[in-house]
């Protein structure tokens, strides 16, 4: 096949700016071939090169005693004691999910699972943070159904419990939904596998599903804004096969035990290109690939297509040649395609041969080291206008507005479509706060949470960024766990706009400060920019995924109070209604500043709760919806009523930070209050669980009515 001529249009179609193309020509000293242009576009797009975000990502805290491996590998690795490690990451699959919700979401899950088991860890938990457009938008229902089924379809078959996540709706996501998939796995701390190749003349082995044309150009698509040609982009979405992924995982983990694997890298965005370059670059070696050896499932595929295909469930590894027979036996057992497709070479070259002809011959290390990096202009987000006058609000009406909205109603319609118990180690199911699993065969437990309040980040990126981390810290703490580390999935609009870049810079500053102050270093993450349609950006949504550890699963704090328990507010009374869920859901107003986050208070209150967990029957963090919603959710979990004494809208629905609601017996509460007093930590009895009504400072409604609304409104609107 004749390769097309390199024209300005073709260059633009590959997402390369004219100055980026000039740089490319300068590096290789000639006009690139079509395949080479494709390789550069894959390596230099935003998705793979982080060219707009790198400068700011470097400012994040990524180290700590607990960190075994920070950002830069397929996933972060964190010590959990006894020679074990948890390996985790969160990654977006936003653009593909909007175009083809089922497959987009499914392959998002597949991609993140692969990142985890590539490092030698068996995936043991997953989460999903989903943001959709407003409920009434014509596309929303279809997206919700498709994405939820896709997440379930992949994770359920693969066999990983989906123990938590988030689902939100807001008009800003009408044209760009967000699908942020998290996965965590367990490994022995001294048996982590990395991507750096080593040794010259070592075989490069391709393992897994055959290569097709699906996803060609996917990473480039994910680095562009959407417009009305979006339906034409469907062929760039990949198709997932969780059964193959499951076999691929079992085969990889089995193979790793044999000592045959020198290095390994999964094929994700920009498939063969990114994975081969990554292995060569990290090992300071060149790579030569013979594409005639690549297992394909379509005829007449070109070098260009093979290098850019994003077919799923594929792995590239450098194998110890002495163990080839062992490796072959494992691949045969799991009935997976494999082939030696190339070798490591001493020269710093990336050589692609196809049909006897050299299709690309590039300086390998420069594909990543010389990738463009931008210091994009940015402007600070102006301070939010103060919150205007509010009408008189009936507390029960306020609570009804919250629990009747799919944003705050029970998400059981979603999580009951995910197998959250497979592996039989789930010890805290989804529904309220973080999900938890037992570390198989030990007493330990890991708690997982995913948090961000995009309205806050929009109003005040810095405080909003801090708040996302603080809320994750509280969710882990409320389950009794010690927060360990964090992964961030940074979803923003077009970084070429200074206001959007300003949101990014502000949010990262907040996230970085909070992670440092709360000792939750960032160990992995992903950036998704250009989440805009027709020039309209999403709410800035830096999703924080976090992991906490309990040395003994028996010390988990539950979420169900007992009848008669006192409701204890740990933290100060509520005052802040700016950007609150109440005024958004009840009045349709998004006004005022985000609540300020006092990181010292967060830490003080968190440590206090963890140290006194024996005095607590149940706990939850106070997030959006404030005291009233937290108390109702705890009551709903136990199927009992609740009476709160505070009566003002601020006290009931204020979203001040560093707060928890605890359920304690009378004696426990008494002891806890004395201890808190001694430490100067505010703690007050604000009510009592029990009965069959919900009573908020005098306004009362039957529990059964509110429960029905809470349990049914998600399915009623979207089911």
């Amino acid at each position, binding site marked *: 096949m004749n390769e097309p001529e390199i024209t300005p249009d073709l260059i633009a179609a590959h997402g390369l700016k004219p100055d980026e193309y000039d740089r490319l020509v300068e590096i290789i000293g000639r006009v690139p071939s079509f395949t080479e242009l494709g390789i550069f576009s894959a390596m230099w797009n935003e998705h793979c090169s982080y060219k707009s975000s790198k400068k700011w990502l470097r400012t994040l805290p990524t180290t700590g005693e607990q960190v075994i491996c920070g950002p830069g590998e397929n996933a972060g690795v964190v010590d959990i004691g006894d020679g074990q490690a948890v390996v985790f990451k969160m990654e977006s699959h936003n653009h593909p999910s909007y175009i083809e919700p089922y497959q987009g979401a499914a392959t998002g899950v597949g991609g993140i699972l692969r990142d985890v088991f590539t490092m030698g860890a068996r995936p043991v938990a997953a989460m999903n943070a989903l943001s959709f457009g407003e409920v009434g938008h014509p596309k929303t229902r279809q997206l919700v159904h498709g994405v939820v089924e896709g997440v379930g379809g992949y994770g359920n*078959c693969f066999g990983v419990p989906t123990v938590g996540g988030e689902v939100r709706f807001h008009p800003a996501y009408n044209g760009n939904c967000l699908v942020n998939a998290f996965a965590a796995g367990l490994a022995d701390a001294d048996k982590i596998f990395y991507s750096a190749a080593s040794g010259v003349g070592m075989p490069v082995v391709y393992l897994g599903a055959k290569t097709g044309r699906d996803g060609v150009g996917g990473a480039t698509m994910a680095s562009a804004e959407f417009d009305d040609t979006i339906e034409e982009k469907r062929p760039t979405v990949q198709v997932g096969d969780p*059964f193959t992924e499951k076999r691929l995982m079992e085969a990889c983990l089995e193979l790793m035990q044999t000592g045959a694997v020198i290095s390994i890298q999964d094929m994700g965005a920009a498939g063969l290109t990114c994975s081969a370059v990554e292995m060569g670059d990290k090992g300071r070696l060149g790579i030569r690939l013979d594409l005639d050896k690549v297992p394909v499932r379509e005829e007449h595929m070109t070098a260009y297509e093979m290098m850019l295909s994003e077919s799923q469930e594929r792995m590239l590894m450098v194998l110890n040649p002495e163990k080839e027979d062992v490796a072959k036996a494992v691949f045969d057992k799991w009935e997976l395609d494999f082939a030696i497709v190339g070798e490591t070479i001493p020269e710093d070259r990336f050589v692609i041969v196809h049909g006897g002809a050299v299709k690309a011959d590039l300086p390998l290390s420069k594909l990543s080291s010389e990738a463009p990096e931008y210091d994009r202009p940015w402007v600070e987000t102006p301070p939010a206008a103060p919150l205007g006058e509010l009408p008189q609000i009936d507390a029960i009406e306020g609570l009804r507005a919250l629990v009747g909205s799919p944003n705050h109603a029970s998400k059981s319609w979603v999580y009951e479509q995910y197998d959250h*118990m497979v592996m*039989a180690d789930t*010890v805290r*199911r989804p529904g309220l706060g973080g999900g938890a699993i037992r570390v198989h065969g030990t007493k330990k437990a890991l708690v997982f949470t995913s948090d961000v309040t995009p309205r806050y980040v929009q109003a005040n990126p810095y405080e909003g960024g801090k708040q996302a981390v603080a809320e994750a810290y509280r969710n882990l703490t409320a389950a009794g766990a010690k927060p360990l580390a964090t992964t961030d999935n940074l979803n923003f609009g077009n970084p070429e706009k200074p206001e959007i870049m300003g949101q990014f810079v502000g949010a990262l500053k907040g996230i970085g400060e909070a992670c440092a102050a709360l000792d939750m270093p960032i160990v992995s993450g992903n950036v998704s920019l250009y989440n805009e349609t027709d020039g309209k950006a999403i709410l800035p949504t830096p999703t924080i995924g976090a992991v906490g550890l309990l040395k003994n699963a028996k010390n988990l704090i539950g979420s169900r109070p007992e009848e008669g328990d006192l409701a204890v507010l740990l933290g100060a009374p509520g005052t802040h209604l700016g950007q609150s869920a109440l005024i958004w859901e009840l009045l349709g107003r998004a006004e005022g500043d985000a609540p300020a986050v006092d990181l010292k208070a967060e830490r003080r209150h968190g440590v206090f709760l963890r140290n006194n967990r024996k005095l607590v029957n149940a706990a939850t963090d106070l997030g959006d919806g404030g005291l009233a919603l937290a108390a109702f959710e705890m009551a709903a979990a136990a199927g009992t009523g609740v009476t709160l004494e505070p009566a003002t809208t601020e006290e009931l629905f204020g979203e001040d930070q560093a707060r928890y609601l605890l359920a304690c017996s009378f004696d426990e509460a008494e002891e806890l209050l004395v201890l808190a007093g001694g430490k100067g930590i505010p703690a007050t009895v604000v009510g009592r669980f029990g009965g069959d009504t919900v009573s908020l400072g005098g306004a009362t409604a039957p529990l059964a009515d509110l429960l029905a609304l809470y349990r049914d409104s998600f399915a009623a609107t979207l089911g």
Partner: protein
Amino acid sequence: MRAAVIVFPGSNCDRDMAVALREVTGAETAMVWHGDSGLPDNIDIVGIPGGFSFGDYLRCGAIAANSPICRAVVDFAAKGGAVLGVCNGFQVLTETGLLPGALMRNANLKFICKPVELVVETADSLFTSGYEKGQRIEIPVAHHDGNYRADAELRAQLEAEDRIAFRYGTDINGADDRIAGVLSENRRVLGLMPHPERAVDPLHGGTDGVAMFRSLAASLVSA
């Protein structure tokens, strides 16, 4: 008691079943690969676990039912061997013909994962002797194709022969007569959609599955 748990490439509850067998009953439990043509010697019970045996993109369990090991399981059952099929294992058992009926897609066409109430319909089997007939227990389900179908004649026969082991407390997936689990004619093969192995530890949030494994241990004492 000696147990064998069958492992298909897409099984994902094989470990869970083995853990429950070992921890509740102390059974010596062997994992047996689907490509093997025989079971280990002196096995008292075979477990067919949940999961997606061969991806199950078409009819769940249909390919698994034709695997070499399933021929051995059918022979084992024919000689009176005890077989427990959970979830995908139940689907496999109906595909092999060891159990009657078929499992179709859930009535709401969605995957369902939650603890559900079951009614123990018979205590007369080696799987259910530890329960009382009519007892209500809570066991989790997690399936996309758990809608048990049997025509009126078969249902009448199952009823008459006391072979319905469990019913759902309320309809969750459209199953005929809310049937959640059935026994073979000789009462030594049980298939059920709910996962008893996910309810054997207080940390699971419930322990109503323990009695099933204890029943087995009580009946199947190794020679």
